[in-house]
């Protein structure tokens, strides 16, 4: 009886294995090396503060990496690139630091929460700061300014409107 009970306790874990996690297993975050350059603007990624991004493509082995989550969106939202993208990853600022984000902190971009318009400086314009939880994003926005957005809220129009 005890055995079955413990199995029952495991059940939610099995159910928790949703699509996002399957993708997470399929796409491993790549380390950003000191010589890696931003796929969009060409800058050396690790020389700049702020959360970075990387994009896993359907047809290509090569994983484009970006100096900022902002430039990642600038690339990923272009109509010609949108369809080629399998999975996007961003640094979770809730679990790493702003100045030199750790590559162990890459999370699924689609399920992250974002703070836009914060006073914290990144590169290539206003930062698009990602968080694994809504609470962390809210807390960050309270301290550093900016508004809370979901993945779907981030559009080229939004990014273009900022100077």
């Amino acid at each position, binding site marked *: 009886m005890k055995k079955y009970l413990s199995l029952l306790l495991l059940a939610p874990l099995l159910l928790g294995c949703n699509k996002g996690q399957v993708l997470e297993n399929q796409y491993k975050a790549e380390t950003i090396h000191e010589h890696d350059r931003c796929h969009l603007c060409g800058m050396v990624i690790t020389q700049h503060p702020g959360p970075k991004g990387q994009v896993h493509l359907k047809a290509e082995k090569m994983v*484009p990496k970006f100096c900022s989550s902002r430039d990642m969106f600038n690339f990923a939202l272009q109509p*010609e690139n949108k369809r080629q993208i399998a999975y996007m990853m961003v640094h979770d600022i809730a679990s790493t630091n702003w100045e030199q984000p750790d590559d162990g902190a890459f999370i699924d971009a689609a399920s992250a929460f974002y703070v836009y318009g914060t006073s914290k400086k990144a590169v290539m*314009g206003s930062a698009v700061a990602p968080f694994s939880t809504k609470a962390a994003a809210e807390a960050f926005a309270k301290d550093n300014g900016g508004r809370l957005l979901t993945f779907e809220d981030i559009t080229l129009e939004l990014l*273009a409107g900022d100077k």
Partner: protein
Amino acid sequence: MLRLFFLCWLCGVAFIGRAQELRVKDTASLTQALVQAQDGDTLVLDAAVYEGNFSVTRAIQIKGKAGATLDALRQGSALTIAAPRVIVEGLNIRHWGGDLYDKDAGILLLSGADEVLIKGNRLVGDGFGIYGEQLASPRIIENSISGNSAIYILDRGDGIFLKHVTAPYVQQNHVTFVRDGVYLESVTDSKVHYNQFAKLQYGIHYMYTRGDEASQNQATSVDGGYALMSSKQIYFHHNRVDQARDFGILLNITNDSHIQANIATQVLHPQGSVELGNEGKGIFIYAAQNNRIQDNEFSQSDTGISMAMGGEANRLWHNRILTNQTQVKYVGEAQLEWSYQGQGNYWSEYRGWDTNGDGVGDIAHRPNDSLDTLFWLYPEAKLLMSSPVVLLLRWVERQFQPKSISGVSDSYPLMQLAIKGDGI
């Protein structure tokens, strides 16, 4: 008697106040002269190798005779300048350190080293050629700066690195084997003219600058010619870049600038692909607004003009877009008109007529048809590109010139390559 004494006193004052010329011939006498020298003195260095790290703390002039060489013995900066109005001329400088974090440089300009003149020196070393931060009006003229080609390009220092510097004047330098030829960050009112760049990352790299001007520079065999990033009001004209890999000119988050009469040719990326967006681009415009782009040539490259969404609000006219593999790449939804006051651009593939002889083609030119856009969106369909159906669709589209499709249009394509230079 009193009068005589006064005369002597006057002579004395005059003697002390007069600028002296000090000859030095070895490391010891140079070190001593740098300590003793007063403002206005001139140090003349005989042909010799002067070893170590030297510092200038007075407004003096340092002149090298042919063969005078500073050698930092591969550690630190060779010459550190901490005083204003210093002149350094005719020196060979070599073997400074390669620690970029410590700002190792051939010539290191410290805060307050205003109005220096660095002229006609030959610098060869690992870190930065000339590094300056927090100062005003340096003049850097006719130097030859070479990095170390054995170091990976991103680990090299920049030829000339200036940060928080106002009104620098950089002219007729020759820069090779460094990271960026001239790197300007948070700089205002720079003038960069007649420099030559080869075998390096970018010829000139602007970051957070304002009110700059660059002309008559040449870049060859580089990753990118000129990167204008996060900057404002740059007058960038009559520059040239050839044999670049990533881009000729990059306009990124750069606004209110004037890009005129430049040539970007042979920008080719051997491993690049249009699908990945990393092909060679004559000019790459994204997140850049209110720029005037006129009289330039973009030719013989993978892509002539690449505009990403967010680059729409720019004016392009009188440019020559010649024989690029892809003349224009723009996949946004907006309809863009690339002409100004009835004058468009010259397109090498334009086949229209000019029946009224005004030099402007009678029908608008669309560098891309809707099928180009389709193939950019669905690259896997590329194998259909030359199929009869696609050719038919292309022909049909050309016959009807639908007004509603998105993309770039030039309503006034120029018939002649030669363009009347009407200035700004």
